[in-house]
């Protein structure tokens, strides 16, 4: 166990050398170079910032899609002369009555893999919709995979819109990723107050221009209230132009009365539609509606053909800016709900870094001195191994560009305390061997050999805990699992390769003396 081939020695010290270089990169301040910019990232709990978990509420969009399916079904029934009754949409399902003859016809086309209402997904071997028949009453619902597809596409679009909105705000290096099939995780380092972002994400920002109805006609119009007052207006359900026809929006001051407004520009299609409607409806009101609330309902004084205009409302410049931002980045396909929020202020982060560093240094020194006290010269070997262990750990974390959290620092300190265990196991074994063995070389050799299985067992058990924690833990706790787990690997390396090599030096120097541990 004490003999090292040249190649082995080269590999050991080469690994230490490389990882030392990586570890020292944390002291270099370079952001451009791919290699030099590698660093351990600080978690949100250390640098301050906000963590938000959003959930897409896909219910409204499922309803919306079912509404479309219902219209298509009605058309199809008419075309195929299927007599249906009580066709309606409730509780996320389409319901209708058919007689037995028509049920057959219905099933025939509904289960045809080429039909354009109920899509067939080859990859899932499933239809988009499921149907159930009970006494002639037919219920159509989205199938499991149909829902998965809706959720997936909704999440994809939402992710894009969320990204645009956050980019527009201009925060520092945000992380925006999907979680599962209906969640979005956002990390905003350095952001002290997530309020504005939360507000921006809390709005669907579905903008429509619709005519205000002249008389009460309950069929084609709906009663909507204003954003800022309780006043209500009857608004036509037909959308003149929607937010997706906007190509630009920005906050501005109206030069007549110095009020904050949002000025916007339509694309060609939007401009054409808007021009036509405004020229046909001079004198009537046109409502500008955001998420079912009326922002304002100005009277059309002249045909607006330029394709641009402005929205007035009780805006401050800030709220006009935010509305413009929402309009530019587009509407969310479905409402988002914040289900978890964690924010750490930058001063607490700094305090945590300080406290973490102090406790690391103190813990480290205590362990170092204790080992010296217990093992004297061999203690130096254990301590050198511990130092190398820390350097290796930091080096690997740097290569992985891992995120260091406060629990992660705790993991490093704990590694310091537990890493010496490997050397303790070995030294204690050597001590025992020395009782019966006169040759120090033999004692060390068999000490290392015999301690091996205990060292491995002891470390694998902790590694198992770390791996489970890594997969099931969340947020900062994951950082703990990472440092603890990597710490075990570096411990094995530094005890069984590095410290063993140092021990062989020690043995060679003292081989003729009687030593006592």
């Amino acid at each position, binding site marked *: 166990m004490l003999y090292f081939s040249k190649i082995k020695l080269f590999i050991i010290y080469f690994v230490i050398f490389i990882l030392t270089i990586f570890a020292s990169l944390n002291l270099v301040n370079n952001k451009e170079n791919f290699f030099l910019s590698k660093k351990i990232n600080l978690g949100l709990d250390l640098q301050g910032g906000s963590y938000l978990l959003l959930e897409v509420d896909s219910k409204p969009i499922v309803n919306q899609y079912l509404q479309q399916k219902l219209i298509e079904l009605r058309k199809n029934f008419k075309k195929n002369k299927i007599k249906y009754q009580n066709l309606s949409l409730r509780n996320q399902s389409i319901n209708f009555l058919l007689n037995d003859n028509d049920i057959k016809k219905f099933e025939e086309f509904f289960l045809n893999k080429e039909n354009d209402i109920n899509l067939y997904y080859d990859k899932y071997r499933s239809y988009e919709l499921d149907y159930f028949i009970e006494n002639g009453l037919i219920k159509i619902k989205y199938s499991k995979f149909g829902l998965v597809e809706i959720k997936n596409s909704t999440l994809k679009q939402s992710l894009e819109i969320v990204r645009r909105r956050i980019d527009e705000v201009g925060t520092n290096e945000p992380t925006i990723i999907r979680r599962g099939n209906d969640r979005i995780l956002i990390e905003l380092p350095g952001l002290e107050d997530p309020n504005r972002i939360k507000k921006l994400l809390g709005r669907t920002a579905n903008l429509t221009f619709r005519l205000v109805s002249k008389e009460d006609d309950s069929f084609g119009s709906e009663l909507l209230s204003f954003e800022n007052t309780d006043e209500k207006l009857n608004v036509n359900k037909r959308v003149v132009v929607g937010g997706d026809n906007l190509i630009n929006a920005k906050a501005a001051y109206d030069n007549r009365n110095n009020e904050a407004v949002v000025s916007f520009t339509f694309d060609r299609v939007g401009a054409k539609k808007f021009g036509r409607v405004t020229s046909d409806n001079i004198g009537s009101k046109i409502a500008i509606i955001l998420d079912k609330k009326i922002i304002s309902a100005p009277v059309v004084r002249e045909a607006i053909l330029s394709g641009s205009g402005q929205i007035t409302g009780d805006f401050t410049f800030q709220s006009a800016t935010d509305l413009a931002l929402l309009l530019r980045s587009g509407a969310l396909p479905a409402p988002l709900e*914040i289900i*978890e929020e964690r924010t750490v202020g930058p001063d607490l982060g700094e305090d945590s870094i300080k406290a973490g560093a102090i406790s690391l240094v103190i813990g480290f020194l205590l362990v170092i001195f204790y080992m010296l006290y217990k093992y004297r010269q061999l203690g130096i070997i254990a301590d050198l191994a511990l130092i190398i262990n820390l350097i290796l750990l930091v080096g690997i974390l740097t290569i992985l560009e891992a995120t260091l959290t406060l629990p992660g620092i705790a993991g490093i300190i704990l590694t310091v305390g537990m890493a010496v265990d490997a050397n303790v196991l070995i030294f204690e074994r050597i001590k025992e061997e020395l009782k019966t063995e006169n040759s120090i070389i033999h004692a060390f050799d068999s000490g290392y050999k015999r301690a091996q299985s205990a060292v491995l067992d002891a470390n694998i*058990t902790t590694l198992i805990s770390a791996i489970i*924690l890594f997969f099931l833990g969340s947020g900062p706790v994951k950082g703990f699992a990472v440092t603890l787990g990597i710490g075990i690997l570096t411990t094995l390396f530094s005890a069984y390769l590095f410290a063993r090599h140092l021990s062989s030096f020690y043995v060679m120097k003292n081989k003729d003396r009687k030593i006592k541990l």
Partner: protein
Amino acid sequence: MSFKIPKDIKFSNYYKKLNIFSLILIILSISIILIKGLNLGVDFMGGTLIEVRVENNTINISEIRQSLLKMKLGDVNVKKFGKENDYLVKIETTNLKNSDFIQSINNKLTSDLGSMINFRRVENVGPKVSSELLKAGLLAISLSLAAMLFYIWIRFEWQFSLAAIAAIVHDVIITVGIFSLLSYEVNLSIVAAVLTIVGYSMNDTVVIFDRIRENLKKYLKITISDISNISTNETLSRTLITSVTTLLALFSIYFFGGSILKGFSFAMIIGVIVGTYSSIFVATPILKYTNVKQKTVQKINEENN
């Protein structure tokens, strides 16, 4: 800290007494947990947690509590946290839908107390997420127990596996019991601590078991009690030294690592102490009770050859 370790302690003489002691501790812990329950943090219960720093020294904790109670936020809990003017506020409601919720609490506190208020940390966990986190935490602990059971079952015989798991369960129950007794908050980092305790306790036990197995092969004529004593004595100084270094690191976190890591390091300290005790006085005796003999390990020997 110089302790001379006598090399021939008759550990087996204490097995019975200490096993009864452990049993009482476990029963007590379970009763406390059942009667008093656990002080689950917002991670697992949902709610809002705010770490508040008040800039004005003269304000006391009851003024903060009064001000919060006026806001009608449901159950409110305020306690000191670390430094002089730092408080930890726990609120039952989350109100995640209202993006001004946190801001409005800050404004009201500022005007009620007439002092600058700094929210150093805000954690707002909705009911869906908290129940998921709780499930994931319990799953993680059960999985790690299962994984340990499996690992030691591959490496050793079933008696060793049973004994090691009993020791781990013993450690986890007592640690959680102490948290319940002291009403310390149980949050995500405590789950991390419990998992690490599971690993540590196992680690400690395995080292002794390793030696017992070795000695079972070495001494063919003596009883398991004697083998336990020899093995425990042989590994005792390692057991103690490793516990000391680990505790040194943990005390350093406890005293200098800041308020956030206090609960975590406290749980670990208990776990390491109980874990060290249990590997000697819970795990090893079970080998005796389950009648482990030289024959038990011979099978492995043959398989290996």
